[in-house]
């Protein structure tokens, strides 16, 4: 469902991503971990169509993101690492705005918006301008907006930042539910326990290059760390990579 082929992003001063190859099938939760500045956010932004790769190809659901970005983006639910929104709109107005862009059928829009706002405990704030929301509320609104059009691919950068424990559990359950419904979930995170607990496969990136990928057991074999936890595996791979 998500395919990256020899993807490179060169900022001239920094080679952020270097010939990255990934293949993530439908229904899989893929965790993307790496130290600060490893190229995680750049990869995610390229996959979301926010920045263009310097070279290489990205396909979402078989559609080349460069050739037909509009069709590819229709399948994606994108959640960035920082919740920047249109501060002067209300939460409900923002969802309507997103629904119009993603062509969500008007007859189901209000029902779906209410359902999501209630699920993310934002319904009481639906008619307040986003400017007055807390960081966590904005993060929940962005996730709700990303789910509004029933995406086939979910791309999330640091999903749990700013969320309270209840929110963390809710998002984790939602992501599992999505994968069960054949949605591909790509999660970038620093929370290794989350990656270990949630993801089917994990990719470790450092200095723009993929060091290893697979299940925790496969990563252990690659790092020769026995049956250590993901934290130990990660530190070993990054140190030796």
């Amino acid at each position, binding site marked *: 469902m998500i395919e990256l082929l020899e993807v490179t992003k060169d900022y001239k001063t920094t080679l952020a991503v270097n010939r990255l190859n990934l293949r993530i099938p439908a229904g899989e939760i893929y965790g993307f971990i790496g130290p600060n500045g490893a190229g995680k956010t750049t990869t995610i932004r390229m996959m979301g169509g926010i920045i*263009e790769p310097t070279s290489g190809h990205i396909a979402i659901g078989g559609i080349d993101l460069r050739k037909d970005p509009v069709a590819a983006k229709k399948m994606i639910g994108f959640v960035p690492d920082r919740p920047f929104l249109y501060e*002067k709109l209300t939460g409900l107005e923002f969802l309507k705005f997103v629904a*119009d862009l993603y062509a969500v059928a008007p007859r189901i829009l209000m029902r779906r918006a209410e359902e999501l706002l209630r699920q993310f405990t934002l319904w009481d704030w639906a008619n307040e301008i986003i400017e007055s929301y807390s960081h966590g509320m904005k993060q929940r609104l962005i996730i709700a907006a990303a789910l509004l059009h029933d995406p086939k691919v979910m791309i999330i950068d640091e999903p749990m930042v700013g969320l309270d424990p209840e929110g963390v559990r809710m998002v984790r359950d939602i992501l599992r539910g999505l994968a069960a419904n054949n949605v591909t979930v790509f999660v970038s995170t620093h929370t290794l326990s989350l990656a270990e607990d949630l993801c089917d496969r994990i990719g470790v990136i450092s200095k723009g290059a993929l060091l290893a990928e697979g299940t925790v057991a496969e990563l252990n074999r690659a790092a020769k760390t026995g049956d250590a936890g993901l934290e130990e595996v990660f530190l070993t791979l990054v140190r030796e990579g």
Partner: protein
Amino acid sequence: MYNAVLTLLQPRLIGAANGFRSRASGVRLLIFFVIGLVFWIGSFLIFYRVLTYFQSVQDFGDILAMKLLSMMILTFFTLLLFSSIINSLSHLYLSRDLSLVHSLPVSIRHIFLSRWLGSAFDSSWMVMAFSLPVLLSYGMVFKAGPGFYLAAAGAVLCLCVIAAGISSLIVLCGAALLPAGKIRTLFVILGVLLALLLVLVLRMIRPEQLVNPDSFASAVLYLNSLQALDRPYLPTTWITDGIRLALKNEWGLSLFNLALSASCFLFLLFLNDTTARLVYFRGFSRAQTAAKRLFAPVQYRGLSWEHLLGFLSRPARAFAVKEIRSFFRDSTQWPQLFLICALIVVYLYNFSVLPLDRTPISSVYLQNVFSFLNVGLAAFVLSAIAARFVFPAVSMEGEAFWIIRAAPVSLKTFLWIKFFLYSFPLLILSELLIVASNLLLGVTPFMMVLSAITIFCLVPAIVALAVGLGARFPDFKSENPALSATSFGGVLFMLLSFGLIALVIALEAGPVYKIFMARIHGRGFSFWSMAWFLLSFALALLLCVFAVVSSMRAGEKHLLSR
């Protein structure tokens, strides 16, 4: 104390210095400098010419020059007050870095003083820079000695700091008195007050009376009355007199007025310091409360923007509704909006009082010349409005621009929606201005149609230039994207827009003159004349089309490559 203030100012100073280091900013700075220098020299030459002309008018020359000086000081002071209030509000209560600054172990007085200094500088530097050529021309025309320049510099400095002192006092009190979450209401109040003030001041000056011989006797009396020290309690009077008397080498009185201005500033500083200690932190805390909407949303079905714009496609409507709501809910936009309304009222009123029947030139000729020039003037006004509202439109997306990039809508669609969204109201505004002023002038139907068509072609071109260059030079990280109008891209837009207007007007001027004179004298046109007309009008149209296509493409290309 001063160490703490200097330390608080350091991030700003170091940040500015770092900004100048890169090669790209060096080039931009050089271009800015050249543009500034041209404007500076232009202002000097115009003032020098005007003052030299005034000197040639017997008896009244000096009075006219001093009247001009006092008008200029009053205008500068009004501009400074307006800009200082907006800057103070931002520097003291709304800037993003305030949370960090207030968490530092520094006293509230130091924080206030450092923010006040930053705000005073931001609101004053341009007025200070552009008052210099004016004062230089006064000095040269009146053959003043070096003492005059020192006194004038001191007077301008006093003008700036007094305006900044009054403004911060207003903002401090306003923030303390307004309910929590409503601090941005100050922008709206300020906008209304300023619009009223502008209409009042401009109509009080009544420039049309200067060409009315019937009222000349009363004008003499009026000018004579200016020689007396009226309204001695106003700082602008002290500052004007400080400069005026230095010009005449009356040093005692000049220094007295300057000392009066300086003491006024020191008193204001004391008042600010005391008020800040009492209410600044309380006001700041209240400003941190979630912003409340100024007006409750309209609840009637069928009256929402979605229903009103129901004829648009869904993405277009989504962008349009988002843009309109964000615009009207942002109270920082309101003062300028009110100001534009006031300027339009003054603009049209001035046309209604033009004493065309009292001039020695043929009234019909003059009416139509004015009508033609009016197209250029309206287009220049439109450019200024576009620089303020349309050029920052792309930057206004701010850090939320990722939503556009992630959405299944092409950047081309996004930019064209912006284009149509701003073209429509600006077209209505420009056509209203043109038709109303032409009706007031009583021009011929030919001029009415020609000017309406010309502005119809110029509006999309200017809007596309603004949208395209706004996308070519976006600033998504700016705290106040509206300020991008004064950035490199904004200045480039103004230059290109003025160039386009000048070219279109120049292309039309010849044929229009020929057609108009032929109508007056009842003559026909030769084949070559007709070909010339056609070519000129076609070129003007092509120029507008080229401006639309090329600037929109350049903007899209740049956004795609980011």
